């Protein structure tokens, strides 16, 4: 790695609110790896695919505004949440492909002194590590390998599908056989566990109106990982994390089985393997405690 990596960090809302440990561990890992992250404090919520159901134009304008701020810093944007990643890259994809649409969005943005040019790319922090930093470089820095741990990767939908939009940001991950997170686990010294639900949906987006659907989908994943002998799961998405961790007890009731499966954020396993202490990675914020690291 010749050049120092530098990104504009779009934290999204969840990493600042209900999963503060995600932001904490991201910053700790970035510091340790010498990746520079400049906060995009001006950015607004991505709409989480829900504003998109109500007001398409508004959500395009707001997401484009976020991209404008990354452009102002002349940096690629890095995201921490799969759904932020999807909405940012989908916005970019749509306005890059359609001149007329881009003009309509820019018309509004000009009224607040901004203009989208299309120079900054958007990628999830997982792929900043795996693709840009590189797993070989990471391997050299591992001092506390997660030896003897069976770790179940949970990819989350919006980082891997639709591949037409995410493909160029995620190293062309195949959504049917994704492997970035598996490879990351192995480099961190763990054993990646194979199970059917690893690239399936956690159901987060219908949690309010259809908790039964959400609980069953998350339940299938948690039990899939349990039955595959995982010691814990790891996910790059804080929304998946909320479902899998915070709701785990209720999910167990829906599934009729007691579940006790710690779920770690992707930067947390990297941080642990880099020798960063558990407190600095916010492991105490989890509802289901990863007792191994206490």
């Amino acid at each position, binding site marked *: 790695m010749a050049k120092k990596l530098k990104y504009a960090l779009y934290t999204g*809302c*969840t990493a*600042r*609110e*209900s999963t*503060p440990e995600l932001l904490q561990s991201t910053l700790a890992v970035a510091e340790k790896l010498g990746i520079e992250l400049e906060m995009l*404090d*001006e*950015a*607004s*919520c991505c*709409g*989480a695919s*829900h*504003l*998109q*159901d*109500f*007001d*398409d*134009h*508004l959500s395009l*304008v*707001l997401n484009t*505004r976020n991209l404008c701020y990354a452009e102002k810093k002349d940096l690629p944007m890095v995201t921490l949440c799969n759904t932020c990643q999807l909405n940012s890259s989908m916005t970019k994809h749509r306005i890059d492909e359609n001149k007329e649409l881009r003009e309509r969005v820019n018309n*509004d*943005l000009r*009224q*607040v002194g901004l203009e989208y040019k299309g120079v900054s790319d958007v990628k999830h922090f997982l792929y900043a590590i795996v693709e840009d930093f590189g797993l070989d470089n990471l391997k050299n820095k591992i001092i506390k390998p997660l030896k003897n741990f069976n770790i179940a990767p949970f990819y989350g*939908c*919006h980082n891997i*599908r*639709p*591949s037409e939009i995410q493909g160029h940001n995620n190293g062309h991950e*195949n*959504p*049917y056989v994704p492997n970035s997170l598996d490879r990351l686990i192995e480099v961190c010294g763990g054993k990646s566990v194979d199970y*059917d639900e690893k690239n*399936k*949906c956690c*159901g*987060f*987006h*219908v949690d*309010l*109106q*259809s*908790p*039964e*659907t959400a609980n*069953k*989908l998350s339940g*299938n994943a948690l039990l899939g990982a349990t039955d595959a002998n995982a010691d814990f799961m790891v996910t790059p998405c804080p929304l998946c994390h909320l479902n899998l961790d*915070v709701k785990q*007890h*209720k999910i167990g009731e829906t599934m009729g089985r007691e579940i006790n499966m710690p779920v770690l954020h992707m930067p947390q396993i990297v941080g642990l393997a880099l020798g960063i202490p558990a407190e600095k990675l916010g492991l*105490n*914020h*989890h*509802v289901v405690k990863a007792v191994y690291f206490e």
Partner: protein
Amino acid sequence: MSQDQIASKKVLFKAFRFNADKDILPYYEEYKLIVTQEDVVLDVLNKIKWEHSGSFSYRRSCRHGICGSCAIKVNGKAVLACKERMFDLIETFGTELILDPLNKSRAIKDLIIDKKDFWDKYSSVQPFLIANVDKNPAKENIISQKVADKLLEADYCIQCGACYYSCPAVEVNPEYLGPAALAKAYRFNGDVRDEAKLDRLDTVNEMGSGIWNCVKCFECTQVCPKEVNPMDKITQLHLQTFAEGVADNNVATRHAVGFKHSIEKHGLLDESGLVFYSEGIFGMPQHIPEAINMLKNGKIPMPWSLPKSKNLAEIKKLVKISSTAKF
């Protein structure tokens, strides 16, 4: 190109076998075949039937990706057998491939399934043009390209069921209409000539079975062999319900609208505020156990430390300028 120049590979196929008239349990039969670069999945199915097991059953008709009858699953991925290239599958999954029906629990014979659930839901959205058409028109009723483009290629659907039988929401909620029926509802709701738009919105707006039960996983978009992008059509239907003023006032619609209020106020989301706004006071008790857990673990910021975006005035102004929907 002569035969020996065509690249080929040895593949072990495990084919799902089941005869509902005779078998209690299904089983897998193994076939070792040579697959060439030119083969699609249907060539393999034919090879198994013609050269190894005459009773092996699967649907196919057009062999041109247009009748929609030949969809099956290979290693869990739904594919159109007559379109999917074998070498692409080998690249993804390797040289041991499992041939399954789209839905094992609906298998009648081998790869043939009973698609009744699919067709019932499909029929329920009135999948046809409803218009008062002049029976003896003096001239053709021509639609401009611009208006036709509004269909967003929803009319490309061949009812193959690949999306429907890959949809996780359908899997855990059998009431859910699923991607194909909903994409079809948009096919006609996006058609200027159609007059049953509100009627269809009424059907797809139903809580429990309609658009609000899609988990937004993009499995359908990913798998569709005709690039219909059903997930996008479901979003279009969401937008239509608001645009037509027929969105019900419920937890799901308030949730979508609540994002706008939250962004206008804070730039970022006020997560607890959003749940409160969406659920209303009477919906809150069910969230209490989780809220307590979250509070205990420092997962709920206090009102005075709720993060806000910098340049909030700019966001407020944009929300004013750029809003296009009402609720």
